[in-house]
């Protein structure tokens, strides 16, 4: 048998030879050069393995991943239970024409459901902005369904963004 090239020797060490490995074994017994080659390749493999195992893990990796999973689980329940409940209650309040408490109510519910994050802050800001703007413009007079549905859609969009991202407040 002729001396194998480095790739063949490497495949032999990895236990991935396509040819009969017995030929290689008997060649290695006779050829000190190839034996040295095997030792050098094994040393290379060890160095690569050690270098990869030595990559430091972030101290909070486990907690971060678990937190992402919890966020996703919570978002799932939000979608299945929270959103239909929001729709039902807001529909009832909107029908009663009581829209300003509705926006405040949305803010507190969203704060609870989404936790402290960017989406929540934007949504609460939007809700309050609409409340104040509407108070000024309409001077407390009853309002139709349009502002209610704007806030409602904004809140739902925020929740959906949250679900899609799997949570913001886990950084």
């Amino acid at each position: 048998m002729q001396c194998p090239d480095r790739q063949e020797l490497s495949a032999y060490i990895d236990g991935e030879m396509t040819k009969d490995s017995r030929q290689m074994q008997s060649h290695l017994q006779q050829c000190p050069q190839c034996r040295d080659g095997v030792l050098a390749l094994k040393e290379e493999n060890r160095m690569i393995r050690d270098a990869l195992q030595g990559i430091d893990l972030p101290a909070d990796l486990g907690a971060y991943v678990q937190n992402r999973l919890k966020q996703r689980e919570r978002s799932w329940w939000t979608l299945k239970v929270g959103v239909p409940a929001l729709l039902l209650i807001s529909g009832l309040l909107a029908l009663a024409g009581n829209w300003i408490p509705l926006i405040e109510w949305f803010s507190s519910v969203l704060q609870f459901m989404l936790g402290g994050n960017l989406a929540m802050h934007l949504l609460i800001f939007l809700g309050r902005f609409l409340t104040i703007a509407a108070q000024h413009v309409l001077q407390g007079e009853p309002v139709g369904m349009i502002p209610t549905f704007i806030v409602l859609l904004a809140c739902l969009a925020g929740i959906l963004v949250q679900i899609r991202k799997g949570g913001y407040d886990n950084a």
Partner: protein
Amino acid sequence: MDNEERLIGRARTGDGQALSGLAEQYAPQVYRLAFCLLKSEEEARDAAGDVFVKLYESPEKIPVQGFKPWLMKVVYNHCLDLLRRRKTWQGLLPRLLRYSQAGLEPDPAQAAADAEEQIIVRQALLKLPEKERAALVLRYYQDLSYDEISEVLGVAASLVGTWLHRGKARMKEILEQKG
């Protein structure tokens, strides 16, 4: 049936606790593969989170057999997506992009803690082309077979040996140039 098989079986039914268990067990391996591909600690951590959230979203896709190679394929494909997106953003908003070279230039505290040899070898590894880098990580850190690696990378098994060989030869060149 061993503990891992039981965990996988339960995770396939959407059991959150079982998935948490798998995440605890595999997060380091997922992170290290992602880190070698993305070369960024922050992005690798995010990618690890994304991968386990994906599992939570589609538990029925978790295979009964060959979980680890399958998981590595999910990580690899996710990282490729991120790299593609990164390239797009690099073109559009180069100044806003936070591209970290943390993997290439370890901070002094880490350098002091790590063995010098490991840092040098890692630096050389991170300079390899993406496919060769991935093949080396999958073989020498994840201990996958050539067939499993070919499945993860989506190439013929015969190419895996070539990439491993080329990767090591290229690393050698880099190390010799250095010093």
